[in-house]
């Protein structure tokens, strides 16, 4: 018997189709019913217009799209024989605003998605505080806007640099938003200092917390999420950053990767029309996002969690919480390195001189985001976007399930819905 479940509040909608045996999911397919045809929309436009259009792929991670676009165009410049040099200041500013976008995402996911979903699963009567997530996110986005002008939908990254020419006042302002955010996180979410939290090396340390994170840890264990929601225990990280290690992992073994082996295939969706495509690396699916990044970074606590609970729903959730903490600290170190006297922009030849293909890969909040642009005389001939949710939430056949499909097998419908959300699904990005 096939049962349909409509899933909303995932940056759009999706449908889950469960095959049930004895009330447990034996197989599930996923459909994404909406699309906007953004790749086609870009064709025939000036390549620089992509810097305005692609952030509008997604309201929650548009900044990652902006960075993927700017990297893709810069790669096309390079392939056309015009190497673009970016100053250290440019690299740091781009990295800082990207990291802060992840921070706002993780806060919202924690307070607006995962805690309410878990509370529903446990029929908890605990009062929810979703606006804590919105408040923390709004401080993070102030820090972004200090350099990027606004969030969402900034276009401050351009080939050769950034449009901004900040002063020390701006840097001090960003630092103060960051310390406000840190204080809020410590007081409202962690219950201990950020430094103490980051020094945790065992998941037993979480049980000491009497805070939102402590309660989250407890509820996950109570619902057996440490022995549920396993995917394939294979991970991939593709975006090069100061906070990532580009690699793929089979369990904990690192293997080198090159983005040229990334491909897509149509999703298997027998019950409803879907606009999604699955992403693959050398014909295999991989889990992406905070758990993948934390394992690739060899974070002691995440390795400890993974040793005990593998790639369970618990590991996925706590890796995202831990990444939030580590990114707040990392963002602060990026600001400290900024040299205000450094240049913001290095001019290259006009875009109309460019005839080349370029690939831009970044880590977005949910994992690798890859943009490929084909430019002819400065005009976009073809544009292709592969987003993180296409990796995590593919929909395939029984013989070869994707990470999310595998993770839902053996669970009740309610548990499967929760586990689905542990991947931090982004519907608008998936079909773009």
């Amino acid at each position, binding site marked *: 018997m096939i049962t349909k479940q409509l899933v909303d509040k995932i940056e759009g909608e999706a449908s889950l189709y469960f095959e049930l045996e004895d009330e447990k999911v034996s197989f599930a397919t996923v459909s994404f019913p909406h699309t906007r045809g953004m790749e086609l929309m870009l064709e025939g436009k000036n390549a620089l217009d992509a810097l305005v259009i692609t952030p509008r792929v997604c309201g929650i991670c548009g900044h990652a799209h902006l960075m993927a676009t700017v990297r893709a165009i810069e790669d096309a410049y390079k392939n056309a024989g015009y190497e673009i040099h970016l100053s250290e200041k440019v690299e740091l500013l781009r990295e800082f605003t990207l990291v802060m976008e992840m921070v706002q995402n993780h806060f919202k996911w924690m307070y607006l998605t995962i805690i309410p979903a878990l509370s529903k699963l446990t029929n908890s009567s605990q009062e929810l505080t*979703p606006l804590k997530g919105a408040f923390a996110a709004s401080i993070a986005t102030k820090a972004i806007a200090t350099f990027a*002008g606004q969030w969402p*939908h900034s276009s401050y990254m351009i080939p050769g640099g950034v449009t901004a020419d900040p002063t020390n006042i701006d840097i001090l302002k960003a630092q103060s938003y960051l310390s406000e955010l840190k204080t809020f996180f410590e007081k409202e979410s962690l219950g201990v200092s950020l430094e103490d939290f980051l020094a945790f090396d065992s998941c037993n340390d979480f049980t000491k917390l009497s805070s939102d994170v402590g309660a989250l840890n407890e509820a996950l264990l109570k619902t057996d999420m440490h022995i549920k929601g396993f995917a394939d225990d294979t991970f991939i990280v593709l975006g090069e950053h100061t906070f990532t290690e580009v690699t793929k992992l089979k369990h904990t073994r690192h293997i080198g990767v090159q983005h040229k082996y990334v491909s897509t295939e149509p999703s298997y969706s027998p019950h409803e029309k879907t606009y999604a495509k699955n992403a693959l690396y050398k014909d295999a699916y991989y889990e992406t996002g905070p758990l993948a990044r934390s394992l690739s970074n060899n974070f002691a606590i995440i390795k400890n969690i993974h040793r005990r609970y593998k790639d369970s729903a618990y590991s996925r959730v706590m890796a995202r919480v831990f990444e939030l903490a580590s990114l707040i600290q990392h963002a602060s170190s990026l600001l400290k390195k900024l040299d205000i006297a450094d240049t913001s922009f290095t001019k290259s030849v006009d875009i109309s001189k460019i005839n080349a293909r370029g690939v831009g890969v970044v880590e977005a909040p949910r994992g690798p985001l890859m943009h490929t642009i084909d430019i002819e005389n400065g005009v976009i001939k073809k544009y292709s976007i592969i987003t993180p949710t296409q990796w995590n939430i593919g929909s395939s056949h029984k013989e070869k399930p994707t990470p999310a499909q595998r993770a839902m097998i053996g669970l009740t419908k309610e548990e499967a819905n929760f586990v689905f959300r542990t991947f931090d699904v982004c519907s608008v990005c998936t079909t773009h």
Partner: protein
Amino acid sequence: MHSKQDKKLKLLWFQGVTCNGNTHSFLNLPNIEQLLENFEILYHPILPSIYSLEEILKLEENCDLFLFEGTYDPLMQHNGVELSKIVDYYTKHATHVISVGTCASFGGMFKATAPERNSGLIFNEEESFGPLLEQKQKVINLSGCPVHPEWLSYTLSMIVSDKEVEVDELHRPIELYSNLAHHGCTRNEYFEWKVDVDNFGEKEGCLFYKQGCRAPMTHASCNKILWNEVSSKTRVGTPCFGCTEPDFPRTDMFSTKTNMSIPQDTPLGVPKRSYLTLTGIAKTFHIKRLEGKLIDYKTTR
């Protein structure tokens, strides 16, 4: 007698073809908690809601305020229910309809998804068109890609306090859209004296002459009510793309179309000939202070 608090307005936020940008922009609002206390949220795409999406799609409840985000595509379906039916049902009972963002106002970015049928609720770009023409007096357009959270907060607060929101011919509140994005731009002096700039990434120079800035022709208060309370596009050297106007998104957005090196589109309401004369004169001035760097970090160290 019932006080206002006893009878909260029922708010329904529904989406057409969208990126969720307006939803996330709204979450940046500093006083969101206090503002939302005035409403019963029947449904919102992210915030906790009284009803599930499935329940909302049964078309049984009524709302007072219908907030619509995204481009209107009459053939779009949510769980098998056509968007045209959903919009028709809820707007009939609502006292106010707010088009949240440029897509819902004029078609915007996702008009291009299906140009032959997609539009805003009462406009297709500048042309009167859309599903709510017969009840257009109810509709307030809050264009912007995305909407500014304070603009939406202002509009909701006016409705809560039962005050009339006066709108322009494109149904945008005049208190928000009578300004141009140019007002309050920190580069105004460079505009006054026609000092352009060749490169991005500088504090100096006006972006209107080469970089495609649309601020002098764009109705928006971005440089008056700052974004995220801290900045704006032009303040960080990004040209205004005119995202609150019906023709957004335009093309070649990072360059200015010029005629004899003068911008083809002149500032709103300024006759072309006068503008040319003024520019010609201003260009003959050489104002040293405006030609150099404002701050030279390398020499002040």
